[in-house]
């Protein structure tokens, strides 16, 4: 085993250990509440991919988490904590909704690229402002992005209840936009090939999310821009010494992050609800933090972690349906534990695992 392999093994084992302890504690909570943790686990797994409808929902949730996970990861690779994916997704979704309402009679192949562009602009601006304050005025990006989440939420409540709500409707949401700009759902896409699957909110955006994973991976590790971004993330002083503009890269990272978060709007608004509504992004931005941290801020890891959280969300819904004592919020609890152990306490078992791997690799040679 060479050093690189050993390192990968350590990282993988550390992640598994951290996840294990988070799930163990969640299991204890379920047990304390008087339910059988094994039964809960089986119910969740069955609900998440025991039948094709469950699997559809799992992948639908995962699509969102891929976007917000990437949004956090881009910032993290540049040394930033972008806690604002929640607000960026909200405002990005506003852009998507507005363009769909406006161009509802245009063909999808024209509106889709426009919607992508608009959500990048809207979400990107929402990321760029905190980025600018961080880069030029030294404001802590965590506080600013949190504040921008709240500002976004106030703006959306106002717009949806006063401006975009049709006059005769009660609920604060926009009207449904025309069918021509709906992103085809997965069962329709499968139907083109003569395959039949159950209808779920899973739609073509999932494929777009996979493309984004690939693009972000190429961008961060195989372009000059990505190299500059990572240099700033590892050592700002060294980056500045090498002639890399720190503030430019901070703003770029926040814009790309904001844009990626904005794609949640494509999945939710254009692909599923077909109208602008309140809190369509609720919790997705924060889950992105957990996704990115477990995925070690790498697109491959983010993909796996997004799947994991898709499973948790869908399985959790199934679980709360089966067991009345267990609320849907069990998933939120698990998420908090995962962030704690995989993020803040990531080095809890590291020394022991490093030693173990060292012993194994020395026995090898």
């Amino acid at each position: 085993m060479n050093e690189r392999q050993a390192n990968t093994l350590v990282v993988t084992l550390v992640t598994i250990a951290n996840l294990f302890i988070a799930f163990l504690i969640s299991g204890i909570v379920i047990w304390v509440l008087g339910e059988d943790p094994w039964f809960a686990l089986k119910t969740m797994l069955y609900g998440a991919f025991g039948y094709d409808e469950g699997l559809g929902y799992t992948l639908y949730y995962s699509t969102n988490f891929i976007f917000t996970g990437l949004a956090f990861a881009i910032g993290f690779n540049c040394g930033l904590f972008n806690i604002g994916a929640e607000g960026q997704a909200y405002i990005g979704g506003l852009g998507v909704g507005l363009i769909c309402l406006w161009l509802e009679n245009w063909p999808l192949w024209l509106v889709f690229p426009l919607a992508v562009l608009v959500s990048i602009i809207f979400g990107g601006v929402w990321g760029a402002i905190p980025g600018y304050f961080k880069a030029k005025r030294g404001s802590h990006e965590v506080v600013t992005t949190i504040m921008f989440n709240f500002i976004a939420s106030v703006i959306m409540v106002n717009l949806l209840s006063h401006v975009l709500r049709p006059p005769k409707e009660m609920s604060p949401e926009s009207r449904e936009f025309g069918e021509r700009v709906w992103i085809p759902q997965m069962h329709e896409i499968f139907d083109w090939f003569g395959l039949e699957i159950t209808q779920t909110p899973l739609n073509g955006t999932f494929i777009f999310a996979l493309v984004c994973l690939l693009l972000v991976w190429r961008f961060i590790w195989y372009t000059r821009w990505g190299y500059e971004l990572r240099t700033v993330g590892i050592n700002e002083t060294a980056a500045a010494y090498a002639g890399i503009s720190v503030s430019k890269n901070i703003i770029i990272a926040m814009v790309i992050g904001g844009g990626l978060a904005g794609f949640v709007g494509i999945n939710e608004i254009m692909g599923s609800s077909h109208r602008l509504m309140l809190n369509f992004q609720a919790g997705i931005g924060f889950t992105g933090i957990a996704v990115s941290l477990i995925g070690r801020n790498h697109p491959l890891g983010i993909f796996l972690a997004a799947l994991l959280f898709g499973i948790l969300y869908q399985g959790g819904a199934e679980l709360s349906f089966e067991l009345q004592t267990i609320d849907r919020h069990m998933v939120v609890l698990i998420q908090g534990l995962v962030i704690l152990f995989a993020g803040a306490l990531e080095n809890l078992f590291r020394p022991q695992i490093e030693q173990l791997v060292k012993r194994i690799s020395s026995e090898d040679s």
Partner: protein
Amino acid sequence: MWIDFLLILDATLRISVPFVFASMGGIFAERSGVIDFGLEGKMLGGAFVAATVAYWTQSAWWGLLGSIGIGIVFSMIHGYASITKRGNQVVSCVAINIFAMGLTVVLANAWFGMGGKTPQLPKEARFMPIKLPYAEEMRDLPIIGDIYYELISGHSILVYIAFVVVPVTAWIVFKSSFGLRLRATGENPLAVDTTGISVNKTRYQALLFNGILGGISGAYLSTAHLAFFVKDMSAGKGYIALAAMIVGKWRPYPAMFACLLFSFLFVIKDKPEVFDLLKGIVPVNILNSFLDMSPYILTVIFLAGFVGKAVAPKAIGQPFTKEK
């Protein structure tokens, strides 16, 4: 008009209490060099435990004790992750906030089955308004009588405690020897270490205060302001407290005034009289949004240093490593 004005101030005082407790807690943590975005989680946890324990024991005071307990538990988890294990402090705070959001609803639902709500507390099990001595008698006095009767008297004990906590915090942080250690630890931990004082111990002590105050801020919500806990009860109040602490530049009195200012803006939004007065000048929905947003916008402006720069303690967010 005069009485209306007093009533607005009275309402301002009442809703500022959780902000005041939490922002004082934040000052302790951040002055010692430990980031605390976890006020939201402590407030939420405190609110749930206070309501639950008060319901079980039928005593608001046991509820208060419980909320202090959960506040300390959360702040010690944060301390273990960020001081002992030198983990990332921001991530640890995010974890605590999300964990609290999940845990409170899961437990509330499992124990009471009311969709994340806890049962209504009877009068005996919550902090009721107290009438201060001579309030009735002094009522007839011009101005002073009104102020005493409407504004100062008739709050729950926690309101008075909140405004006692502010000078106490100011005294501890700026006048006591512990406060000197605390501030030095936040600015220059290495220097503190060379004098033989343990940086980590000081930070844990600061977090102890932080947890106590964070918990109490929640207890106020569920056992004094309202008489039950509901899902997501804190609803961003912990972040507003954080904002007030920043706008107040990590100083107790200015932070308290920031809390009062934010509360004032929230109150006038709900006062039709004032609202009618203002809406002649600005369109209603813009005015509404602006009042809702103002704490967040003010925080961004202050952090960016457009109006008096808010500078955090120097060593904030950095775990201390003793040189060998």
